[in-house]
């Protein structure tokens, strides 16, 4: 299946709507404004993922979930460790800079944030495209940023992926990425659903 510029633009717009919904859910949870950047979209061989996503040379926290059903892939919320700790401060109404290590409760809160964001993001895709997609219970991982692609690619056997990425920011202390990686086998179904929906107007 040929992916045209039109498809890419439509996917970007869809990613924008989904990220908007995810950030709005985050905003409700933390009662703060969440700023979003326009989504970046890449259709790339998976061997280029490390180059695109592995640039962060710092410790990061990732909350991720594998997707299955009509769409196979991974959704991940990624933050530098300092942002994850600041987000924990905000969630628990603690003084800024209080969290020095992520306790079990902090981790559970972050997983819950990830869970809500991932579900809201996916709901937009599922509702718009009418696709059946399930996501497994999110897991949390902390690692050096350069290892991040290993987690996104875990269990992936395809050669290409569609990568949708949106940066988010809360005040000055919290920044992160919402990343959706769709395996190439799912792309025809995804684009097919997108075309059908767009034809319906």
């Amino acid at each position, binding site marked *: 299946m040929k992916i045209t510029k039109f498809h890419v633009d439509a996917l970007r717009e869809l990613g924008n709507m989904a990220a908007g919904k995810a950030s709005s859910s985050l905003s409700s949870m933390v009662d703060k404004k969440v700023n979003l950047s326009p989504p970046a979209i890449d259709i790339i061989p998976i061997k280029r993922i490390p180059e695109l996503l592995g640039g962060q*040379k*710092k*410790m990061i*926290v990732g909350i991720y979930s594998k997707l299955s059903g009509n769409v196979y892939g991974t959704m991940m919320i990624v933050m530098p*460790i300092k942002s994850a700790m600041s987000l924990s401060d905000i969630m628990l109404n603690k003084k800024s800079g209080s969290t*020095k*290590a*992520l*306790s*079990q409760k902090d*981790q559970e809160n972050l997983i819950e944030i990830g869970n809500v964001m991932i579900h809201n993001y996916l709901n937009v895709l599922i509702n718009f495209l009418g696709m059946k997609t399930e996501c497994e219970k999110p*897991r949390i*991982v*902390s*690692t*050096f940023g*350069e*290892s991040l692609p*290993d*987690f996104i690619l*875990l269990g992936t056997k395809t050669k290409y992926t569609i990568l949708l990425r949106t940066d988010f920011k809360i005040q000055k202390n919290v920044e992160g990425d919402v990343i959706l990686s769709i395996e190439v086998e799912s792309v025809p179904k995804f684009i097919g659903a997108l075309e059908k929906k767009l034809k319906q107007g």
Partner: protein
Amino acid sequence: MDFREYIENNKIILLVLPNETYSKVIMDTVRKLDNTFKGIIYVNMNNLHSSLMKKFKENNINENNFFFVDVITKSTMSDFKEPENCISVDSPSNLSQIGIVISEALKEGDFQCLLFDSLSTLLIYNRGSDVTMFVNSVISKARTFDTIAVFTVLKDDTESNFIKKLGMFVDKTINFD
């Protein structure tokens, strides 16, 4: 002074690695340790086991010279089957379990060296004071078994006070620039 002599003169070493070059420096260090010592315990907190093995291959490091204490893969892949030279710990916040596994490995195996990569990951889930106590206990065990211990921290992701404090317990702190 060659690498072996330098390490053996110091025994307990803290490597402070710049974030920019961490991945390269850590593999260079592992390769040197592999070429120098027989039997190395590698406490892996940052890489999926399969990714680490791929890096070993790319860097001509002999994985059979290592025993892995893996603190990351099982939490990501519950169906991970450890190879014979690997044992998993459920979570980086479980300092007691990590300590016990290291102790057992030191007791039961014939290891010349222990590499802990990295304390910065432990600090994400545990208070600095707890990590300091934990490191002290690992150092005592390493001294008891006359095993060289090399700890790593990431310069930009670790509070300088913690690095200073640890510096008091180790024989040598090496800052990579």
